[in-house]
């Protein structure tokens, strides 16, 4: 087993070494944009044998395969329009796209239904190896089954039995990788694309729900409901409500509902004058903060940043932004923040006491 540090060797040297190892049906541990992965020649039965011995008990779980381009991907799987859209729009990136396989890789990598997971890693070194090698490589994480997700080579090699160590021909050491979740797996082989595993990457979901509110109380109740649905996962992200609607639409009412769901029954008033009100609340014994913003009086995006907007986006916090439609581009960019779950709420058609409220989750 050889360990090559990316700092000490050129890409060319590493690629050449990796190619040699893969051709000898041994395994290569390589860094990716998520965690360390382990590669075997996807078309060699012996290589896949070694991989399965290394990984241990798999219970016939399929193993995804990394390719270096859309062109290469099309050689190994049947593309439908959905898969093509994902490839062109989001890849390379931390997404595994499951499609109908063409049975050109080892059959143990495909699922029992004949589907194959394809990955196009956003890591130039890996793409270079695949290009040079000319065949797809396996793209499973480098831990043995049920082991912890590896973000450094110590995670893999410590306590690894010698028999398994001997299966590894090369370890490409890139030090500690940033702790990102594994790839998001999306199955496009069904009628509707299905997210099998939610990873780092979040697909945008724009299902707009429209309801009619007959009174202020109903507007408030909607705010309450939307928080309650999401409250359990609060520790994982910042919940952001972007409210739009005319003066007198009931945005502050909605914010009061949000506050009530967080146990804040009093003191939620219009923040127009002070721009932003902070209301600390307790969630599972953790202090979090409910920020109630009103950007009506702000003139530009720089002002918004001056309010320490970025700090508010910490995980576990809840934000309600009134008049968010004044700065659409700013909040669009906000969507790229991985920690935020954004719900856009639009209040329209104000006639006497009835309003049409539409809301949509936008995942990014």
């Amino acid at each position: 087993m050889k360990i090559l540090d990316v700092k000490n060797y050129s890409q060319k040297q590493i690629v050449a070494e990796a190619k040699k190892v893969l051709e000898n049906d041994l395994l290569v541990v390589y860094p990716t944009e998520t965690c360390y992965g382990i590669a075997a020649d996807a078309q060699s039965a012996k290589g896949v044998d070694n991989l399965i011995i290394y990984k241990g008990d798999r219970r016939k779980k399929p193993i995804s395969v990394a390719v270096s381009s859309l062109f290469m991907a099309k050689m190994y799987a049947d593309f439908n329009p959905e898969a093509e859209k994902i490839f062109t729009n989001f890849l390379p990136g931390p997404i595994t796209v499951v499609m109908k396989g063409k049975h050109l890789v080892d059959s143990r990598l495909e699922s029992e239904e004949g589907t194959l997971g394809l990955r196009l890693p956003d890591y130039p070194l890996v793409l270079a190896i695949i290009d040079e090698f000319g065949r797809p490589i396996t793209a499973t994480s480098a831990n043995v089954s049920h082991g912890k997700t590896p973000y450094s080579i110590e995670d893999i090699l410590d306590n690894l039995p010698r028999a398994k160590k001997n299966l590894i021909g090369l370890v490409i050491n890139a030090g500690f990788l940033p702790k990102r979740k594994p790839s998001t797996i999306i199955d496009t082989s069904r009628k509707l694309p299905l997210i099998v595993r939610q990873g780092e990457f979040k697909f945008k979901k724009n299902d707009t729900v429209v309801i009619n509110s007959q009174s202020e109380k109903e507007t408030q109740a909607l705010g309450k409901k939307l928080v309650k649905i999401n409250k359990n996962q609060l520790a994982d992200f910042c919940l952001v409500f972007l409210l739009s609607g005319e003066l007198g639409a009931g945005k502050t009412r909605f914010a009061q509902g949000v506050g009530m769901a967080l146990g804040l029954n009093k003191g939620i008033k219009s923040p127009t004058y002070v721009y932003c009100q902070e209301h600390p609340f307790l969630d599972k014994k953790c202090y979090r903060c409910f920020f109630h913003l009103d950007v009506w009086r702000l003139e530009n995006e720089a002002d918004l940043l001056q309010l320490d907007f970025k700090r508010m986006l910490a995980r576990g916090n809840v934000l309600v932004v009134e008049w968010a439609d004044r700065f659409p581009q700013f909040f669009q960019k906000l969507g790229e923040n991985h920690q935020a779950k954004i719900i856009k709420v639009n209040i329209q058609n104000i006639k006497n006491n009835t309003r049409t409220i539409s809301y949509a989750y936008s995942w990014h």
Partner: protein
Amino acid sequence: MLILGIDTSCDETSAAVSRNQMILSNVIYSQIEEHRPWGGVKPDVAKNAHLTHIDEVVTKALRRAKIKPDDLDAVAVTLGPGLAIALEVGIAYAKKLAKNYNLKIIPVNHLEGHLLSFLAKNAKGRCLVDVIQLVFPAAGLLVSGGHTEIIEIKKIGQYQIIGETLDDAAGEAFDKIAKMLGLGYPGGPVISFFAGRGQPIYQLPIPMLKRNDYNFSFSGLKTAVKNFLSNYQQEKNQQFMVDFCASVEHTIVQSIAIKLDLYLKNHSLNFLTAGGGVVNNLLLRKTLRFLARKYKIPIYLPQDKKLLSDNAAMIALAASLHQEDNCFLKSADRVPAWRLDEKIL
């Protein structure tokens, strides 16, 4: 006792010097720039704006009071309520001063400043009423862009919130309705200006009339105005505008007056005072004076317009009335949602 007051609770950076209750200087940044229409209305958001101006404002306040920082006894600073990051700037500055010149820090609630600003003495020592002549409990009304509250003043430093707005503040309602009428922002003063030329002939619902508590709500009024404007078929000419402005003003002032009336009727109180920017409104002043006459109690309204807006003189003033309470603290921290009836120490 010479106190330097600092207030950075929201848009305005302000510093003032007071000797006991006498205001020696009161500098508000937005008024330094003479070219601004209607005094400091463009929201200069918080932190950076305060950071750039605070030094200048404090220096100017000390110069106008003709004193040196060494002469000061204490520095009073607003800890809340207000915008968190704006408050931080003033607090950090006060701490720095306190450290450099070995001063005490007196934390002040911004609302208490508004409430007590009627006690200010001008540079000649003239005042409406001296603090030792006051008899408690008394009724206080706070109406500004950010607050609308009825407060029972049990004694200086001890307050109880009797009623407050559940959504928008009265000043905000003025501003937002002005915006709906196309009068720009902030439109409170503009509505008052027009209202003086019209008659309140349009019926708008007075909010919270049926409820027996002392709370306010102005969001329903916004909706009512919206509905009225969309249903109004005739031409919206100048006469309509002045009359409609008069109606809006009348409705807002009435809704405040009705609750205050109820409160004064049910409790025996010794005087009435009011603070906050909306107290500039002439109809409100008139109505408050009428109420005071009705219940035969004296009314004290701050005379200087500067004392009604957000300013630091009222902070220094409140601090000077507080000095016996021994509430000095070095480790002051912001309290963005500080209610007047809460003790933070």
